[in-house]
């Protein structure tokens, strides 16, 4: 197959550069594949196990691509998420990627990720990936502890994850990310450290370590709200967070967002970073979210509704919102404070270099004195302890 690329309008390769500062930064493209072989007991994302709707989904997606073509000038990230994209047949994946590349031109040096379930990744799958334009794979490992995997309702075992990682390395795939979960009811710090050690041992380029969030309507969510299961207390959650950050940084990873670690700036997830700094992104597929300028819209979280709208040649948009200046500012603050880069000082209406005590914000003063935040190069950056309090900091500032 042939995939065309276009050249990026700006040749800015400084990884510290914040894409949103660019006058028209390339957008991100997300495709939601709402199919899973089985539902995990904690997952709140939209997906179905009913494969009979796959072909109408594929038709609809094609139509959605056509309807949204040209809306964004250029793209430099592609993300195939879900759901479980790796449950699709090779030919189906191939066609989906090919269609997308035809409609949405990718600039040079793009990042293209696929999410995969360890059980679906073997040598065959890896060599297939090498023939596609995809250049990054994110593996849903979640844990190397089989008891925890069982609790989470995952289909794979720890051994399968290790085998998948071996296969990817053997195939020469060079940009691998792992997803891990901590703070599972009953999980000890020791068990989590063991998972972290084994994960780091495989030397992935990227690690996402998410604290388990009980989503309403999921089995885990229900068990936690009924009191049947108990999430770790705030103190233990803090220690999970700190130990994760300390350990991974000692292993050479950059803690660049609350839950994300990269083995070097160039391995940060370019696509996810767009979500955090108001770079435009286009989301296709049921429940996918899009953003451009000051508008955000999202598709129906229902495959039926998604397909029927597109069958009528209608955009399957459930709702949209327009963000005013205050909304955008508040988003910049809370999203920025989740990242190691923090936020520009002027976002808080205070100036660097003012004598201490005159920043005009007692909360900021207190956070600086208490080493939750630091100021450097005109930016307010959260420290490690500050990242653990990012939501609250955003609310208070």
């Amino acid at each position, binding site marked *: 197959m042939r995939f065309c690329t276009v050249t990026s309008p700006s040749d800015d390769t400084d990884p510290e550069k914040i894409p949103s500062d660019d006058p028209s930064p390339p957008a991100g493209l997300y495709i939601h594949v709402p199919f899973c072989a089985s539902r995990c007991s904690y997952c709140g994302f939209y997906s179905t196990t009913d494969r009979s709707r796959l072909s109408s989904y594929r038709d609809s997606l094609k139509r959605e691509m056509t309807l949204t073509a040209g809306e964004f000038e250029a793209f430099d990230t592609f993300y195939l998420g879900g759901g479980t994209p790796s449950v699709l047949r090779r030919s189906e994946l191939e066609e989906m990627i090919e269609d997308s590349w035809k409609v949405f031109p990718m600039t040079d040096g793009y990042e293209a990720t696929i999410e995969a379930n360890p059980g679906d990744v073997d040598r065959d799958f890896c060599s297939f990936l090498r023939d596609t334009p995809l250049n990054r794979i994110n593996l849903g490992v979640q844990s190397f502890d089989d008891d925890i995997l069982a609790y989470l309702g995952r289909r794979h075992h720890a051994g399968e994850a290790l085998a998948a990682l071996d296969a990817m390395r053997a195939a020469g795939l060079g940009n691998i990310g792992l997803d891990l979960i901590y703070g599972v009811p009953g999980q000890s710090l020791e068990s989590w450290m063991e998972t972290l050690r084994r994960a780091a041992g495989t030397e992935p380029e990227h690690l996402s370590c*998410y604290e388990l969030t009980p989503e309403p309507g999921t089995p885990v969510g229900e068990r936690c709200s009924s009191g049947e299961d108990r999430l770790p207390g*705030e103190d233990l*959650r803090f220690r999970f967070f700190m130990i994760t950050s300390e350990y991974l940084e000692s292993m050479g990873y950059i803690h660049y967002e*609350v839950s994300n670690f990269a083995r070097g700036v160039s391995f940060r997830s370019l696509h996810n970073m767009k979500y955090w700094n108001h770079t435009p992104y286009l989301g296709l597929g049921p429940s996918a979210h899009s953003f451009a300028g000051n508008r955000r819209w999202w598709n129906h979280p229902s495959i039926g509704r998604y397909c029927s709208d597109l069958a009528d040649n209608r955009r399957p948009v459930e709702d949209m919102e327009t963000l005013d200046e205050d909304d955008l500012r508040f988003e910049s603050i809370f999203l920025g404070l989740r990242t190691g880069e923090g936020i520009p000082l002027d976002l808080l209406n205070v100036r660097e270099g003012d004598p201490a005590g005159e920043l005009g914000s007692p909360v900021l003063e207190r956070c600086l004195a208490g080493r939750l935040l630091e100021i450097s190069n005109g930016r307010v950056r959260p420290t490690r302890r500050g990242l*653990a309090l*990012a939501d609250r900091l955003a609310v208070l500032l």
Partner: protein
Amino acid sequence: METIRNFSIIAHIDHGKSTLADRMIQHTGLADTRSFRDQMLDTMDIERERGITIKSQAITLPYLGRDGKNYTLNLIDTPGHVDFSYEVSRSLASCEGVLLLVDAAQGIQAQTLANLYLAMEHDLEIIPVINKIDLPAADVEKVMEQIDSELGLDAFGSIPCSAKEGIGIEDIFEAIVTRIPPPRGDSTRPLSALIFDAQYDAFRGTVVHCRLFDGTMRAGQTVMFMHNNTAYRVEEVGRFGLNREKRDRLEAGDVGYLLAGIKTVSDVSVGDTITDEQRPCAGPLPGFKEARPVVFASIYPIASDDYEELAVALEKYKLNDSSFTYQKDSSVALGQGFRCGFLGLLHLDIVQERLEREYDLSIILSVPSVRYRFTLKDGKTVFIENPAYYPDPTTIIRTDEPYIRATMMFPERYLGAVMKLCIDRRGEDSSISYPSPDRVELRFDLPLASVIYDFYDNLKSITQGFGSFDYDILDYRESSLVLLDILVNGEKVDALSQIVHRSKARERALLACDRLKEEIPRQMFKIAIQGAIGGEIIARSTISAFRKDVTAKCYGGDITRKRKLLEKQKKGKKRMKMVGSVSIPQSAFVAILKSDQA
């Protein structure tokens, strides 16, 4: 005048006064059942909810007696709470008789007695009415016994009724016309009228409610308010129907209203005497008192931007409540606000609730205080009701606080517990009497400060609802007072400062520290809460820091969901007050306010 009857209904709280008034209005056909809103006379939401009357109301009821005569019955509804006893006395002074309402299940209570004594002082004809006879727990026999032995009234003259079910209403009307004497007075003599209430009307100014004893009043006449020494030209007079009913004139014996372009109710004093400027009466009617606030607290807007709005709301509120006072006040911790005076704690509650409900304001109240008296070394005496103005302790030679005489009635089995409560509240000079075998009337002199918080609530809970409470302000007595400050992270929260009795300071400080610890949510840093007298720390508590407060994910690109969550938290934070870098929720101020006072 022979067919006029002026009467009031007096009762202990919850004995069904408003329900009876409503039923009587309905009976006369003034309001048909369909358009009838329950408890017509209690027009404010709060009144209806709490089941108490806050403002007096009056209504004229037409009644065709069994003797074939058309009567004019003026019902003057009175407030039903000790905070408003002066207003009650002025309403009663406008009547010739009262219906003394007694709950058939609960029997005689303290306010029943207090109101009865008031009625007796005014020499009124008293008709006992036993209400709620439909209740399963009703014991009419026993209540009749009490009426006989405790009230010394003729129990056989009492009328059983159920205002709720409409039973006995006709009998009550007949008793009013046959037993209550018609007003005496002379329309040819100089005008003499008693003001028993004043209400604000946005279009017409103050509506003065009055009872004419002698003389006549008509539009165009120039009248004099004797105590206030102001003259007005009368614009309109009339009677009270369901709405105001304009008339040519009011005559001796009438109850009605007058409009004279009076701007605010504060220009009118309840209890004042109206006379004719040209032809004044010999002297004012007796019993005039100025309604003076006894409880003081500061009100602050939670968001300092709301200060102007609060100022406007208070001004509007004040239009209709002359006993409420306010002036500017400012707090280091809470910013600009107002120091307000209230007749009592219920009055304070009502003002707070109305400001929040009708004016949609979020406010914080400081700890209520009474007015203390300080004698200083330089011989001066100062009255302080705001802890912010507490004198330099080294200059004080003597401190005094106001006392009340509390009268409580309850079944004898609770005597021990109530005694303990009163002694704990620094009560003294008690006396006990037994108006009937199993009923105790306990009198205690108590510091006003010790009852303004939750004394009545405590009394009710100790006596399982059987205890009743009434009080009179007595005098100032010497007392050992100190200023208790509350510090949050070393910063004094001046709005939480309180003047307290020395013996209770530590207890009070500990309680405040504990309450604040419960109410202030954990924050990013450790918070130290301290109670201090002068520089001496006498109580402390600590709130540990919150360390993990960030959600793991941003839900793919669904930033909207995340923002909405955080915006909600932000809103919650807006309802908090920043003191230094600590956010203190409104509930923390309220918790201190409600804590046991000694």
